[in-house]
């Protein structure tokens, strides 16, 4: 049986991609006053055949700290999680909705490359079934929005110039949660 562990990295400096995406959403697209904040992180989803959370967490920490594939300590903060739902978003108001969107390339060469390097460079093969890489966007949505998940889905899925930004469905997939 396999379960996932997540290595999540975040820029120590201001994330220019998140700033540009947010600016685009509120100035070029019709989401002003509905989306209040956008954060971006990089998320490595590692599928492991380890039985319990403690063992997975231990291996996840080793991968994050002992290899140079996932975390660059000069520029990243990082966290290792056994689930994405316990992700701390440092909310200021309980009325705001926090919705996450994870965007992954259909041809996930970053994940494949990381797996190959773990096997060839670090000789780590046991317990790791697969690795995928994605961008984890965290949207803070205004209390007045009746369907935050629906709005996040609309923002994620590019359909035309006026709707969607984060995921071009022809080359990427996304998941909202």
């Amino acid at each position, binding site marked *: 049986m396999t379960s996932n562990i997540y290595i999540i990295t975040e820029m120590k400096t201001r994330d*220019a991609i998140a700033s*540009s995406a947010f600016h685009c959403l509120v100035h*070029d*697209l019709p989401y002003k006053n509905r989306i209040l904040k956008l954060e971006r992180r990089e998320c490595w989803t590692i599928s492991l055949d380890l039985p319990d959370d403690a063992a997975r967490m231990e291996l996840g920490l080793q991968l994050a700290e002992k290899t140079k594939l996932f975390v660059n300590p000069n520029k990243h903060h990082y966290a290792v999680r056994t689930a994405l739902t316990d992700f701390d978003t440092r909310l200021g108001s309980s009325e705001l909705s926090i919705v996450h969107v994870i965007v992954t390339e259909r041809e996930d060469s970053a994940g494949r490359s990381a797996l190959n390097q773990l096997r060839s460079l670090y000789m780590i093969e046991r317990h790791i079934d697969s690795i995928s890489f994605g961008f984890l966007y965290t949207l803070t949505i205004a209390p007045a929005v009746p369907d935050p998940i629906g709005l996040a889905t609309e923002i994620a899925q*590019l359909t035309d110039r006026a709707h969607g930004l984060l995921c*071009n469905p*022809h*080359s990427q997939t996304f998941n909202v949660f």
Partner: protein
Amino acid sequence: MNHSDPITIAVIQYPGTNCEYESASAIEAAGMSAEIFRWNRHPEELAQFDGYVLAGGFSYQDRVRAGAIAAKKQIVGTLIQEAAIGKPVLGICNGAQILIESGLVPGNRPGHVEMSLASNAASGWRGYFCDWVYLRCEEKGASGAFNLDFTPGEIIPMPVAHAEGRFVSIDAALLDRITHSDQIAFRYCDPDGRYDPSFPVNPNGSFHNAAGIYNPEGNVLAFMPHPERAAWMRQIPLELDKTLRPASLNHCRLPGPGLKFFTSMKRYILNRRTGR
């Protein structure tokens, strides 16, 4: 408009565009006038131009996706209006990515984004690729605005420099329709004109070896190679063009294959003025 009025082309410059001056040089070498047009000028000023070039580079540092932010800007809305009345629009490399992200190309369902220029994924190569490749001018795309001075079947050397140049779509019916229409004007090939889907002939894994795709009307072209970097023979590497050896100064000054994109654009604009 008088047939003899000067032809003016706007070369759109976003933050991060880096090929605007070479593009303007190629436009002027083709006998037109070029003006570098910053993205934040009033979009209505665009209407005075006869045609448009979205130059290569890294608009908005390729943030989110290559071309994704630039495609949302108001200036692209005006470009869509001008393209709809038949004016020619050439998107080179990052410009092609902007055209795809805005839905102008392939444009079979106007307003909808129907494709993506995905990360290079050729067999045996992934990631950024910068080299000279060969293209074949398709017979089917011969009536397009940027093909007029090419001979159908002509094989031309052209440089590519991109990491996201693979034309893809999840709409299999669309790909089939494009493949059998006049929209694919240029395809990657070997020096003898044979199509091979594998690297390095197809440098990015693009479907049907597509290097350039038109909208259905043939006046908007999303083109991944860089014609402005092959506008003079002196830019063509010796190993690609044996006629340069021994290189004479006069030969080096001759127009290269990339200039034909711009002379075709000029011919297309003149044809429009005379109603041909």
